[in-house]
């Protein structure tokens, strides 16, 4: 440890000032705009925002989709992480590589693929009509289902890798011990694995939840103006109506929810561990 304060300041100052000027100040000013009224500070903009049925729908839909994606990703994540952890070392490394791979590829490209799959002449519709399950193409694009599938594909890898590292850190003999003592698989999962991997679940869950909540590309491509989420609504309010007050309101909601999700899940994790 070096003690020289002046030197320390000189080293961190450029980065801190840069982040402050290009990031912190503009964002804070933007957020303050939602509280500014004709005479002083007010929360009128928030009341207006939530009194609009469309805005409420979008708000609830965003939370609902993010929660559903997180829950489904957790279930698939556990199933996949189990299988990965039990692979021989070489196969494990390769499999983790394949799971992480999509994270490096442009989300626009990743989401675009679903247009080819779910579109009117896409694979799913061709299959459905050719086996006679449906007479005319079913509309999948611009539905909540499409957005859900897109988000799940985008964020599932984050859940899987979080759970893989949690399962690897679990004591090797915990599961066999519980089995020997007569626990069934359901009890093993609920009483042994879940408490021991809670931290990994929390990390993965936070990443998936906040990622889905603040997603722009997926709802923009697969949801369009029919299935707005908070970010696409924000974009629409600004570009269509020049409504910066609503934009500021949505911005604060997104930031508060992102931080709240972080805190809440952190609290859940520590509360369980203390028992």
């Amino acid at each position: 440890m070096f003690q020289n304060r002046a030197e320390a300041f000189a080293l961190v100052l450029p980065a801190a000032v840069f982040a402050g000027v290009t990031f912190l100040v503009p964002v804070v000013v933007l957020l303050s705009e939602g509280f500014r009224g004709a005479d002083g500070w007010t929360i009128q903009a928030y009341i207006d925002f939530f009194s609009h049925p469309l805005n409420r729908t979008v708000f609830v839909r965003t939370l609902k989709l993010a929660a559903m994606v997180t829950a489904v990703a957790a279930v698939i994540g556990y199933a996949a992480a189990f299988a990965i952890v039990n692979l021989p070392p070489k196969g494990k490394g390769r499999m983790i590589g394949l799971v992480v791979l999509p994270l490096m590829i442009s989300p626009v490209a990743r989401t675009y693929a679903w247009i080819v799959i779910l579109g009117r002449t896409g694979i799913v519709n061709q299959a459905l009509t050719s086996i006679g399950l449906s007479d005319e193409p079913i509309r999948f694009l611009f539905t909540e289902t499409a957005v859900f599938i897109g988000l799940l594909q985008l964020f599932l890898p984050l859940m899987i890798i979080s759970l893989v590292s949690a399962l690897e850190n679990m004591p090797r003999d915990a599961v066999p011990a519980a089995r020997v003592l007569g626990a069934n698989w359901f009890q093993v999962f609920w009483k042994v694995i879940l408490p021991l991997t809670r931290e990994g679940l929390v990390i993965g869950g936070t990443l998936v939840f906040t990622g889905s909540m603040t997603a722009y590309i997926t709802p923009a491509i697969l949801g369009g103006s029919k299935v707005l989420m908070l970010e696409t609504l924000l974009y629409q309010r600004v570009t269509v109506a020049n409504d910066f007050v609503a934009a500021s309101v949505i911005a604060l909601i997104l930031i508060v929810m992102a931080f709240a999700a972080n805190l809440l899940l952190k609290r859940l994790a520590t509360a369980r561990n203390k028992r």
Partner: protein
Amino acid sequence: MSRLYTPTILGLVLLFLIGPFVIIIAASLSAGETLAFPPDGLSLRWVIKVFEVESFRTSFGISMFLAIGGTLAALVLGIPAAYALARYKVPFGETIRTVVSAPIIVPGIIVGLALLRYLVVPFQFGILPALFLAHTALILPYAVRVVSASLNNLRGDIEEAAVLLGSSRTGAFFRVVMPNIRGGILAAFILGFVTSFNQVPVSLFLSGPGVRTLPIDMLAYMEITYDPSVAALSALLAFMSLGIVFLAERFLGFSRYV
């Protein structure tokens, strides 16, 4: 557990995660006029078309400039900060760390909008410099975090030894510390490059006539045409990312750092 469990579940997960890319690659090789799978015949016409679209070429250049320049700028700011946070008692160290890493938590669309509204519009600030600032701010947290991690793995007393043996503090940094964290810096560069290149929300509001990043340009193109050229471009970008990651893993053991 049943013996079929592992292959079935892993097969399904991979089909879901990787399958769409296979389809996109196949669709981009189509000879037909519209996006379809299976493709109508095989040809490279849409792959060639990608290189002929003027706006794709311009926006590719802009995205490259932002990804490379922004990452370098973030490293120039981030390496000294990470070094100070790791080796000095910095007053308000935790606060500074939070400020510097906040852009990771705050949604990018808000950063872009804030810069447009309070920098570009009132001060006639150019779109491209604003994009550059936004991308640098976005990459800064990654730069600080990855470089911090590799500094924490390096014993602090080797620089103290260098200083005791008569080297200056700066000399010790460049001759002793830098060579040892080179891998971490390269990993931070690759992570920053990929993050910036694929970034959409930050750049969404920061687009002007002739100034657009490649992903934004793709979104715009997608809205007006339904030909397979976006599929071809997506496939090309996927291969580019894979190539970068493959090389990084090969020569660096990239996954150690992320």
